[in-house]
């Protein structure tokens, strides 16, 4: 695997550990305000400085990892399971089922520019972590379904599937024990790129005021709050901004690395 992929794994591991051990790593209470200490620059007491309400930016960035990864992982798990199921049904049954799912349903979901559908859903449903996750799953599943359909279409033609059919195995048995285990590989790539997308979408929606409501320390919300005083206190925006960029970069590195690793044709490029 490429060096960049290993760097990606290392950065992702750092954020995952930060998210798990946030209560031990955070140096201050994330919601504790101290108006006498507004916009303090980085110091030994406050490593990343303080924000407009005197809250510790480092502790908020650490807890922000928890929100980002929680949303990202839930979105990836739910949409990949649902997408895999629908994609597998389309690829396996073919004919009308495939025409309806891949020719019509997939196209409808792809007809909305991704973020717009999430914005619309959250606008009508109202803000909140659960609703945000639901909106991101609605836009996310179709990517997995398309990949899975393509894979199943390929794998179902293999001889061992024909052999299983000849032995009298049921459709469900063929699909779940013979086809799916041999078709999931590209999903791993899709999942790591999907994770990057979900983290970015969560931050974007929170930035727009449609994601996790304050005072929860979502990175997107932190950036929105810091924007007004960016020229005098750039650190308040810089650290959550870097946290988002590094997380997205890490999962993109992992996705690209895995794609190259799993597809030898790409390795020579």
């Amino acid at each position, binding site marked *: 695997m490429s060096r960049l992929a290993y760097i990606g794994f290392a950065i992702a591991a750092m954020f995952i550990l930060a998210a798990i051990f946030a209560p031990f790593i955070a140096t201050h209470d994330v919601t504790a305000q101290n108006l006498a200490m507004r916009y303090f620059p980085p110091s030994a007491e406050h490593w990343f400085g303080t924000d407009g309400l005197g809250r510790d930016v480092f502790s908020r960035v650490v807890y922000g990892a928890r929100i980002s990864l929680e949303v990202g992982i839930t979105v990836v798990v739910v949409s990949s399971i649902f997408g895999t199921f629908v994609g597998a049904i389309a690829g396996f049954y073919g004919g009308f089922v495939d025409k309806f799912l891949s*020719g*019509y349903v997939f*196209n*409808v979901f792809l*007809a*909305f*520019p*991704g*973020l*717009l*559908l999430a*914005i*619309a*859903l959250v*606008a*009508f*449903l*109202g803000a909140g972590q659960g609703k945000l996750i639901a909106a991101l799953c609605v836009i996310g599943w179709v990517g997995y379904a398309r990949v899975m359909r393509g894979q199943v279409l390929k794998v179902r033609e293999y001889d061992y599937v024909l052999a299983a059919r000849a032995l009298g195995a049921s459709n469900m048995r063929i699909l779940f024990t013979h086809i799916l285990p041999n078709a999931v590989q590209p999903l791993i790539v899709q999942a790591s790129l999907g994770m*990057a997308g979900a983290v*970015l979408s969560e*931050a*974007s929606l929170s*930035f*727009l005021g*449609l994601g996790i409501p304050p005072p929860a320390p979502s990175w*997107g919300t932190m*950036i*929105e709050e810091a*924007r007004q005083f*960016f*020229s005098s206190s*750039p650190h308040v*925006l810089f650290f959550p*901004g870097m946290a*988002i*960029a*590094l997380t*997205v*970069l890490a999962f*993109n*590195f992992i996705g690209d690395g895995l794609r190259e690793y799993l597809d030898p044709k790409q390795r020579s*490029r």
Partner: protein
Amino acid sequence: MKYKLLNFARQFALMLLVIWTVVSLVTLLIEVVPGDPATVILGETATQEQIENFRVKHGLDRPAFFFSYSGESGFIWNGLENRYAEYWTGLLKGDLGTSFQTDRPIFDMIFERYPATIKLAIAAMLVAIGIALPLGVLAGSRKNSLVDNAASFFALMGISLPTFVIGPFLVYIFAVKLGWFSPTGSYYPEDIVLPAVTLGAALSAILTRMVRSSVIEELGEDYVRTARAKGVSERKVLYKHVLKNGLIPVVTILGLQLGVLLAGAIITEKIFNWQGLGLLLLEDGIGKRDYRLVQGCVLVISITFILANSLTDFVYRKLDPRIRFS
């Protein structure tokens, strides 16, 4: 010829079917609002009479769809006088309803602001092409060199850095420190530069990678070897032969990315207070709970996206005979 016509008709029918579904979904979105939209819009302090008047005025007193379902009486037929049918009838006449907040026609509100967004999206696309083409060609023709690695790094940063991080940094450097542009708003023609660069950054990154791999692939083709054997200069090989063929996939990406730009413009418009459709959707639509306006904005952006995609598909087939005949 007959096959081509049939194929075109099939594509066109699918496009219409997708548009119909998208319109239906957007029309029915208002049904997912928790509670009564009239109460949500007018607030808890509104009297019952005010709520009733509002419901009648905006058609919220009528059923949402042709039929409804309740646990006790099962499916109930609501007749043709329902909001879904009314929305469609209006839409076919170019009427997107009236605003819940200002009573103005949604169509007018949207098309007053849409040109600013289109202008921004096109400027962002031009910025992206301007960066990606030379950088991608340079990286692709000097594979694994320092330039190639630098271009790959730039591309990864462009994809990973969100618009709302790039935007404030650009404002800080070029508007606050250097004073070249206005930090927000659009007072001078050059004020489009910062929003366009912010919005186009991610696209330029995607395009750079695409042009690079396209150039690498095309450089390995037989026609390049033939051209070189005939003594054609490397520069001419690259720009006249390789780029011409290598640009085909780039055209597709550009078409597909138009929708992403239109949706992404919402964030850029917020950062730069750019008076486009995104800001209208965000501040007047979502901010003031003007659900009718949100419906209209989502609909217009989605339909633009579908039309752009269909047009891209058409142009792509025209450009590359291999696709047309496969």
